[in-house]
């Protein structure tokens, strides 16, 4: 039996975003939303571990009220219940504040063996929340995890390094930040989606978690996002004229100079 808490974020669907050409800003209005892709890997791994070892999976999501859609999806994928942390005070917090709020919620849940997060989220990909959360909870952590094997009170983990795989062993409890390669998230069936609506979802506000509103969200954060801009990628459109051999030579020179080839 293993008690798992999996954290996931409700984000805008980056593939559906439109750019306002006039000011180079992203138009978030009416944008589609979803569970951050890699967080689906985290949920999938949590559910697989439960299916194999027995136990429960609690989904944990910090977000606005519209995150209920993602919460339902996580429940459809196999989480047994969920906690949605939703309070205007939490809004626009940086990664450390997010990790702090999550840690308070986890302390309130109390019992756990494994916390699972993704290594990063598709919207900002700071890669901070998982490790910071482990620090707040004072438990060991493993990031970039591509394989989890549980035996008794010990887990063996593969970590995806740039040039190879590192295998580590760790006692429970611990935090695992999974890599996208770890699994292929399932598509919940229609009946699973329908019955997800009947599972327990509790909403917690700052006061439920003993959090002083001024210490979280925008006010409590060290990092402030002042604007989001789209990088300009103007094409150079250089034309090399002349005979085929001349122009191809000049093209090769230009490519070398730009460092495109070497």
């Amino acid at each position, binding site marked *: 039996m293993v008690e798992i808490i999996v954290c996931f974020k409700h984000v805008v669907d980056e593939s*559906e975003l439109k750019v306002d050409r006039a000011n180079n800003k992203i138009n978030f209005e009416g944008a589609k939303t979803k569970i951050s892709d890699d967080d689906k890997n985290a949920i999938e791994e949590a559910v697989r571990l439960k299916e194999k070892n027995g136990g429960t999976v609690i989904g944990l999501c910090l977000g606005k009220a519209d995150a209920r859609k993602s919460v339902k999806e996580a429940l459809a994928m196999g989480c047994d219940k969920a906690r949605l942390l939703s309070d205007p005070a939490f809004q626009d917090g940086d990664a450390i504040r997010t990790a702090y709020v999550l840690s308070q919620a986890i302390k309130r849940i109390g019992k756990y063996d494994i916390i699972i997060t993704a290594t990063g989220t598709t919207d900002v990909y700071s890669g901070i929340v998982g490790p910071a959360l482990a620090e707040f909870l004072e438990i060991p952590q493993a990031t970039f995890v591509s394989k989890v094997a549980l035996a008794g009170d010990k887990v063996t983990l593969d970590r995806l390094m740039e040039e190879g795989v590192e295998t580590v062993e760790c006692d429970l409890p611990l935090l695992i930040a999974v890599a996208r390669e770890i699994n292929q998230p399932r598509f919940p069936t*229609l009946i699973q989606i*329908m019955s997800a609506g009947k599972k327990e979802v509790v909403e917690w506000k700052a006061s439920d978690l003993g959090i002083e509103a001024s210490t979280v969200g925008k006010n409590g954060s060290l990092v402030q996002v002042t604007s989001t801009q789209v990088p300009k990628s103007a094409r150079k459109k250089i034309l090399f004229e002349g005979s085929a051999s001349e122009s191809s030579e000049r093209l090769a020179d230009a490519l070398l100079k730009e460092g495109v080839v070497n």
Partner: protein
Amino acid sequence: MPFYTEDQSKIISNLFPERAEEYNQLLESFGDFVEKEILPTARTIDKQGIFPKENMDKIFRQGFTNIPYPQDLEGLGLPYPIYIACMELVGKACASTAISLAIHGTVCDGLYRFGNREQHEKYLKDLITGRKLAAFGLTESNAGSDARAMTTQAILDSSGHWKINGSKMYITNSAKADYYFVFAKTDKGYAAILVPNETQGFSWGSNITKMGLRGSSLMGLNFDNVLVPKENLVGENGEGFEYAKKMLFGGRITIAALSVGIAQAALEKTITYSKEREAFGKHLSEFEITRAKVADMMTEIHGARLMTYYAALLKGREQDFGIEACEAKLYATEMALRVCNHAIQIHGGYGYTDEADVHRHWRDAKLMTIGEGTSEIMQVIISGKAFE
């Protein structure tokens, strides 16, 4: 663009204002699944003529055929238009898969409406969940539009068995199906009889190759003194032809939905291509003539979708829906051909090549104006209403 389109979502929201959020989440998720799991297989299925068994199993596992049936039959108890919206999504992804599922669905519908309790338990549950596959055997070599001209015969013999002799032609899911819903002439007119695949004397021909829907299975069936227990009669002896007509009315809504899906796929490819392809220093999408075509495509798809979902709503509410189903089928199938034709045209020479994978949609759509009643037969039925 999300696979489950905004137009679909708006229609569903307005058909079911109280459950809009729930139904849209279901359909969005199903669309996501279809896009990632089914769509990537469509081209190979067409090119190599592979029967889409794997796709169908995946879709069955999602709970697709379960959608409109009550929970005591392992159904999901959802409204019929939800099933139709899903059928559109499967048609958009892979029409070969969708036609095989549509025929299977037509048999489920008939067995549900005309079968008895034991048949529901023994056969329908397995079909609804996709543990078993069904085929619909009406057409014969000399009896297509004029199905009453069938000569396949069933006689109730003294041992309490139906003895069937004759043959059927152009039967989808042949050789792959576990149960064949077969229509035959009897002493009292026509009867519908369920024939399991492993019955002695029952056999099928070789696969008939065709211009589109190349993944689906199409064969003739032969009945040589086939004996099935008398309990395999569905409904009443003598009512078979009425059942066939009623099943086809329902089936026509699924064919209409499938056609809307095919047209939607062609439209989306066209929009993408016309934004990329340049001529005379402009993108095709900047030419007014291209835009006018795209506007017509969108409008016709929307119109066909409304007719289709409306017919589905009537069916789900157990109101008369026959004429509306025929109108939806007539309009949606012919519309799909027009839309796919525009799509090929806007893709230019590339559209005509195999590389582009655009003519597949036209080839697939063409069957829709023929199967489950031709466009002309739709005109006969609809106009019959005007002059009754």
